[in-house]
């Protein structure tokens, strides 16, 4: 339980720093250290993600870093994607999916590193349009 709690802190920390839910760390904490099955671990991790994301979003809102309208549009339309994803996962070989997703995230990582290295124009960039 102590190890699980420490990993949970790390998951929350990652969530606050880079805006992900933390499931990447919560799932192993629940399966390896608490002993839940993979499905139970993933499901229970979802509950933790809701709480962590809620507190994180509230904190970010108080710092002025939350666009609530955009967040709602993205969140509301995600179930459609989940449905498509589940179908794709069952129709396309898993290995092909894993390797293509790996290539995609590496490409995005390259884009982020380039972005971090380019000369900064002004302070925080805000969205181009607020329409």
């Amino acid at each position: 339980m102590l190890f699980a709690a420490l990993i949970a802190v790390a998951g929350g920390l990652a969530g606050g720093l880079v805006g992900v839910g933390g499931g990447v760390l919560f799932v192993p904490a629940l399966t390896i250290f608490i002993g839940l099955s993979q499905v139970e671990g993933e499901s229970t991790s979802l509950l933790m993600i809701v709480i962590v994301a809620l507190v994180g979003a509230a904190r970010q809102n108080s710092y002025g870093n939350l666009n609530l309208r955009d967040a709602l549009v993205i969140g509301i339309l995600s179930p459609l994607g989940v449905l498509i994803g589940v179908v794709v996962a069952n129709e396309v070989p898993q290995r092909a999916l894993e390797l293509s997703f790996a290539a995609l995230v590496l490409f995005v990582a390259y884009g982020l590193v380039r972005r971090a290295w380019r000369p900064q124009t002004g302070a925080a960039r805000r969205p181009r349009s607020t329409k």
Partner: protein
Amino acid sequence: MPSERTLKLATIGTLAGIFSGIFGVGGGTVIVPLLMFWFGYGERLATGTSLGAIVLIGLLGTIAQGGFYGNVHVTTGLLLAIPAVLGVVMGTAIQQRIPQRAVSLLFAVLLVGIAIELIVK
């Protein structure tokens, strides 16, 4: 007819859902970079807005998995959420005090880690 901006947001939501459906990883991996590249969001605004969207995505997933399949261990989840919330409060506070480009680099490190996990598994 929805505006181009709404259509782009809808695409981000759908893509985030697709990757969650296939790999079970949260939508944040998809949402944060796309908000930055497509909308010119700064790192902090992108990560904050991503957390807001994840509340909804996670809530729907929890209701489906817990309500329909009974796979959610509520007490365990709530107990472990306590240290996790401590982490996210620290994480958001630290994020306000480091340069935005450092957030981009941390995110790139996370993505490389995910890629390695996908390749070796």
